């Protein structure tokens, strides 16, 4: 900084800095602001304000230029993001295009990103299942990664806390592997999903089919109305941004709440280059930002720093935060930074039909998406030739089709009188993967991005454990579908690369031992006590459950700890 002076530095000094405004950054911001800390929230992308910046939210299908289909040229130019299920005309403006932010794939990895205020919280699939001690005990029991430094009891009150505010719809199912929470009413399974549930639970008592828990306001409480959000209207157009605030996003919930305290400064277009470490003070003092538009370099200062840039970008920022004390990245005494990255194996699905219940159909839309089968494999003890297990989605639908073979008035008549088909049924796997040192990210030695920051080099792959688990999922689910009397069963093995699950985790893992982990049990850096990471980067292992709810709980818990440490003068 050329014209640095004391006033200017004071203007760039806050109590706390949060890097990232997605699900976990939004929560950190809300908690810090509510506790009275002047908080700077840095977001690398553009501003997206709730409702105002959801340009497609109220469009009818015929109002999309290409009926929601992405044009050929855009698909050709962006093969990675084009593989994402939600990349269509109605939400394409919330996705990073391949061409805009290149990265290096040592092995194929579909890195799906949302660079804007709210991040991917606008785009997520909104599934919110708690993790349990079957997950937190996993690495220790099955001897992989390192032991989690916490257990479910540490996180339970924080799950309660974030669920009450975010609004989670679900049933109390009484399953230790999927703990119950502070739920709004669950969305009911439909008649065929219920049939499958009963059939499975009779034949295989350990295999539960429950209503998927999701971050939707099925019946809002006062705390949700106070956020300006109202009941979910079952549009299932969530990826456009919801004008009702029917689902949880940073934009609809945590960020406006944080802003209301008067303590938040939100700075979009702020690409964080690195965390600044002061060798004398022995702690971090701020962050370096490159303005996205002007490319100006600006330093901001604070007492505590939350790095919540989304799993892989948090890795990138920390790897790029080099000092004499930390030549290989901030807090990286263990040399594990960037390593032990893992994800969820989403590479298998299965479909079928059911010929029963022909006198029933569904009406309206289910935002929860249907049923959820919690992990039953290797739950209480090791049973298979692979480690861990999978959860699965399960849903049934009844669609109408018309014969499109003819021409003229016959065709027109047929199109206008679609016939109900058999019920369709489908399931997809959500497999836990084992974090390994070789699954890693690093800074590319030569390639940089537009802001002068090294590109991320990603080297993440499936392994033999994943292949065995995938086969077991397909065999087991085929057996279950057959048992239920489903017909036309088809197994779908996707060759999708890791990343497309959009559940990448790890690289800045928590652990008990500073020699083998970066963060302690408070998501605090072992070696740099005023830096905290509460996004996916912190995960020691992946569980089978969707991770976002757990990031929220970690963020709230960590702010509570960090602020109390700050008040005690410990950091």
């Amino acid at each position, binding site marked *: 900084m050329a014209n640095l002076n004391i006033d200017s530095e004071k203007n760039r000094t806050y109590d706390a800095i949060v890097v990232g405004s997605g699900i976990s950054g939004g929560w950190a911001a809300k908690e810090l602001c509510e506790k009275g800390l002047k908080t700077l929230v840095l977001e690398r992308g553009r501003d997206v304000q709730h409702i105002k910046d959801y340009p497609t939210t*109220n469009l*009818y*299908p*015929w*109002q*999309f*230029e*290409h*009926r929601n*289909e*992405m*044009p*050929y*040229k855009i698909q*050709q130019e962006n093969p990675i993001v084009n593989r994402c299920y939600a990349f269509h005309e109605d939400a394409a403006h919330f996705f990073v295009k391949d061409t805009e932010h290149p990265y290096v794939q040592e092995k194929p990895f579909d890195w799906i990103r949302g660079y804007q205020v709210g991040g991917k919280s606008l785009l997520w699939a909104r599934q919110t299942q708690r993790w349990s001690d079957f997950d937190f005990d996993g690495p220790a029991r099955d001897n992989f990664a390192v032991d989690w430094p916490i257990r479910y009891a540490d996180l339970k009150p924080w799950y309660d806390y974030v669920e009450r505010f975010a609004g989670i719809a679900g049933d109390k199912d009484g399953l230790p592997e999927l703990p119950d929470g502070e739920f709004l009413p669950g*969305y*009911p*399974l*439909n*008649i065929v*999903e*219920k049939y499958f549930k009963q059939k499975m639970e009779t034949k295989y008592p350990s295999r539960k089919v429950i209503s998927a828990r999701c971050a939707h306001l099925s019946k809002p409480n006062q705390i949700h109305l106070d956020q300006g959000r109202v009941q979910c*209207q*079952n*549009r299932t*157009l969530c990826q456009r941004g919801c004008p009702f605030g029917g689902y949880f996003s940073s934009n609809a919930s945590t960020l406006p709440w944080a802003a209301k305290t008067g303590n938040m400064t939100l700075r979009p277009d702020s690409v964080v280059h690195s965390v600044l470490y002061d060798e004398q003070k022995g702690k971090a003092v701020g962050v370096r930002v490159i303005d996205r538009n002007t490319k100006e370099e600006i330093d901001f200062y604070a007492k505590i720093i939350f790095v919540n840039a989304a799993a892989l970008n948090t890795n990138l920022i920390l790897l790029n935060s080099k000092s004499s004390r930390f030549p290989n990245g901030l807090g990286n005494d263990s040399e594990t930074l960037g390593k032990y990255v893992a994800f969820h194996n989403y590479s298998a699905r299965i479909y079928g039909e059911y010929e029963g219940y022909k*006198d*029933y*159909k*569904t*009406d*309206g*839309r*289910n*935002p929860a998406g249907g049923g959820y089968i919690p992990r039953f494999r290797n739950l209480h003890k090791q049973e298979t030739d692979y480690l861990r297990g999978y959860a699965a989605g399960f849903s049934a639908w009844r669609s109408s089709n018309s014969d*499109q073979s003819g*021409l*003229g*008035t016959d*065709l*027109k008549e047929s*199109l*206008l009188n*679609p016939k*109900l088909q058999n019920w369709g049924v489908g399931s997809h796997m959500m497999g836990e993967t084992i974090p390994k040192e070789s699954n890693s990210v690093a800074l590319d030695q030569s390639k940089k991005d537009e802001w002068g920051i090294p590109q991320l080099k990603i080297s993440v792959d499936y392994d033999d454990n994943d292949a065995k688990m995938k086969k077991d999922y397909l065999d087991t689910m085929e057996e279950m579908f057959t048992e239920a009397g489903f017909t036309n069963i088809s197994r779908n093995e996707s060759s999708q690369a890791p990343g497309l699950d959009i559940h990448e985790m790890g690289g800045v893992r928590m652990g008990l031992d500073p020699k083998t982990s970066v963060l302690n049990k408070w998501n605090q850096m072992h070696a740099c006590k005023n830096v905290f990471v509460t996004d996916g980067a912190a995960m020691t292992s992946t569980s089978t459950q969707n991770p976002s709810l757990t990031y929220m709980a970690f963020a709230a818990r960590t702010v509570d700890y960090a602020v109390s440490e700050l008040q005690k003068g410990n950091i």
Partner: protein
Amino acid sequence: MNRRTAIQQLFIIAGGMMIASSCSSDRNKASIELANIDVSAEEEDVLGNVVEAIIPKTDSPGARELNLHLFVLKMVDDCHGPEDQKRFLDGLKNAKSQKGKTTSEIQEYLKNLPADDSFLSLVKKRTIQGYLNSEYVMKNKLIYELVPARYNGALKIEA
């Protein structure tokens, strides 16, 4: 100039979607802006008759009245690669033989094309898509609800 009139001149409604009209003053060119394919006014007219043969006017509008031939052009132009575009244009040139023919004559022509004719399958697929997703059909025939505000997982169908 009346602003409303100006807007009407710039856009054509095709199945409910506004498509930018061509800036060209050449009356021999297609009426909408196309970036990749070169289509003449005559070919556009023939395509209008082809889509009308696929979904004709009955007691409700047909494909031509809904401007679905323009929708097909727009989709071929933006959402298909060069190979599809070439096959489409070749098929369209051949279909010029149907200029001035009646709807039933054009239907005969289409029925006599080979079963795997790529022009017919592409035009038919896009015409059906444009029709089913048209404002007319979604508002009057097979109602699309933007805000269902309900979910019933077991609705008994009355016989």
